[in-house]
């Protein structure tokens, strides 16, 4: 009996490991597939050219600059509001009914499908506030999308600050805000930045909400201001994937490689910050 149970245990363990390995292998296959399709297309010309009807002349300069520009504006909008909201929930209103309600609401918002934010952006920013299909409308939509994520991660970072730091500051006669501004925030900053970068790296890969607000799929110029029409890298990739010609799909694969490198850089920065932070607190 015992031997039979032991054997079953080993079988189960191997099965679980194989499944886990398959999941990880699918990531490897995905990256290999994209690399095989698109690596040959990567070149300086591809990075710096504008879209074209001829696939071999087309490039991603407009989409790359659009992505970077939109993300920077998104960060400028979402970062201060997100951190402020997190400070309120973590340091001020922890026990009030309003704070509890806001908390539940934020958890739910974090799980709302991104395309719903696109519809919100279309109805609110593009139409009601008459921003049109501009960089500002796109960035505002993405800012609302990443706010819950930023708030949740900032709260984690604030919670990790030892309460002795706050108490020491109060004992010296500092007010609540002085304590937060001069003591808590500097300690929590690396953690806050880590969460921020991860949230923005999610936003930079978003396609659906920006398509919904009507970001263009064919733009022949780089965005030159907040009111400029724009496109982003994921939308350009989507546009190329949707075409039947193989050459355009090669372009899509090359675009994906650039997008993945962009994401990997952001994630590496976040992990580096997190490691530094953990060492400092330990």
């Amino acid at each position, binding site marked *: 009996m015992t031997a039979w149970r032991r054997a*079953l245990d080993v079988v189960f363990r191997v099965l679980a490991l194989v499944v*886990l390995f398959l999941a990880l292998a699918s990531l490897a296959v995905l990256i290999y597939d994209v690399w095989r399709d698109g690596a040959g297309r990567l070149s300086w010309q591809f990075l710096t050219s504008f879209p074209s009807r001829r696939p071999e002349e087309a490039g991603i300069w407009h989409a790359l600059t659009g992505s970077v520009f939109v993300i920077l504006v998104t960060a400028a909008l979402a970062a201060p509001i997100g951190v*402020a909201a997190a400070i309120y929930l973590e340091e001020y209103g922890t026990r009030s009914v309003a704070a509890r309600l806001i908390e539940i609401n934020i958890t739910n918002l974090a799980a709302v*499908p991104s395309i719903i934010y696109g519809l919100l952006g279309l109805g609110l920013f593009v139409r009601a506030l008459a921003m049109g299909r501009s960089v500002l409308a796109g960035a505002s939509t993405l800012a609302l999308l990443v706010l819950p994520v930023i708030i949740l991660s900032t709260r984690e970072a604030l919670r990790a600050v030892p309460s002795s730091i706050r108490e020491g500051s109060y004992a010296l006669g500092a007010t609540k805000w002085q304590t937060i501004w001069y003591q808590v925030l500097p300690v929590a900053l690396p953690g806050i930045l880590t969460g921020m970068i991860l949230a923005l790296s999610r936003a930079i890969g978003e396609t659906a909400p920006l398509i919904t607000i009507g970001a263009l799929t064919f733009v022949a110029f780089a965005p030159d201001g907040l009111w400029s029409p724009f496109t982003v890298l994921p939308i350009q990739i989507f546009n190329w994937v949707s075409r039947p010609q193989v050459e355009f799909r090669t372009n899509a694969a090359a675009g994906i490689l650039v*997008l993945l490198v962009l994401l990997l850089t952001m994630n590496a920065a976040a992990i580096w910050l997190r490691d530094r932070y953990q060492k400092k607190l330990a």
Partner: protein
Amino acid sequence: MSPSTSLRASPSTRLRASPSARLRARRFEFLIEWALFLCALLSIGTTAGILVVLAVETFAFLREVPITDFLFGTEWTPLFATPRFGVLPLVMGTVLVSAIAMVVALPAGLLSAIYLSEYANPRVRRVIKPVLEILAGVPTVVYGYFALLFVTPVLQRVVPGLAGFNALGPGIVMGIMILPLVSSLSEDAMQGVPRGLREGSFALGATRMQTSLRVVLPAAFSGITAAFILAASRAIGETMIVAIAAGQQPRLTWNPLVPIETMTAYIVQVSLGDTPQGTLEYRTIFAVGMLLFLGTFGLNLVSAWLRGRYREEYA
């Protein structure tokens, strides 16, 4: 000067700030708190905004299309000359793809979670968990490319009659996409089970497998269910994979081999065209969006409630 006098002197000079200065300081603290509160309140504003935007256009839509036609109609042809607005084909497409995704993600995610939580040593976990995070962070448009140009062609060699656009390929890829979510949330739930329960089980002579399946899993049940429901909600709201690889043909079918259309893919399809504001066609995407929002929001609430309950059990 003796230490005692200096100790007495410094606080008195500090605290004897003029009353007006203290008042100003207090007013400043008050203003800060309100500003922070308003920022937090913006999240409620976001939810309200979503509801208002969706509701306004949905009501306008329902004034022209009876709600029973919308909810129970079996034909969705809003772009035809004689439009029909029965949303069921879109709902069915969504449910079909999500179901395929869940069939992939639930067992695989749960097994991965059991391995990571109950078998793996800390060093292995430290390597595997970031890789799973990367899997979760891949943009969905990339998964769409993968589904259309790799998974579907591979499947076509095995499955006869599989169309170029279908529910099967994107469903499987979507399962891979939500697997990390299932795995990490389930693992959290299992980690929350007290060590004592496992030790008691081992002491009775149970193997790791018996302990995992008969002690840890039941104890973490509500947490794991919460993970499954949240994953289902993610699958239903997922857009780009199905917009790229599932086709654009609303069809009332359980057949995973033919092109279909999901609610999210329909919203993308209309958004790509230049639809003028105020037309019935423009309003359909808000009506479909409302249905999508209510469905996922309901699932999220159930999931949050289950998670809360499970936390209470071992608090």
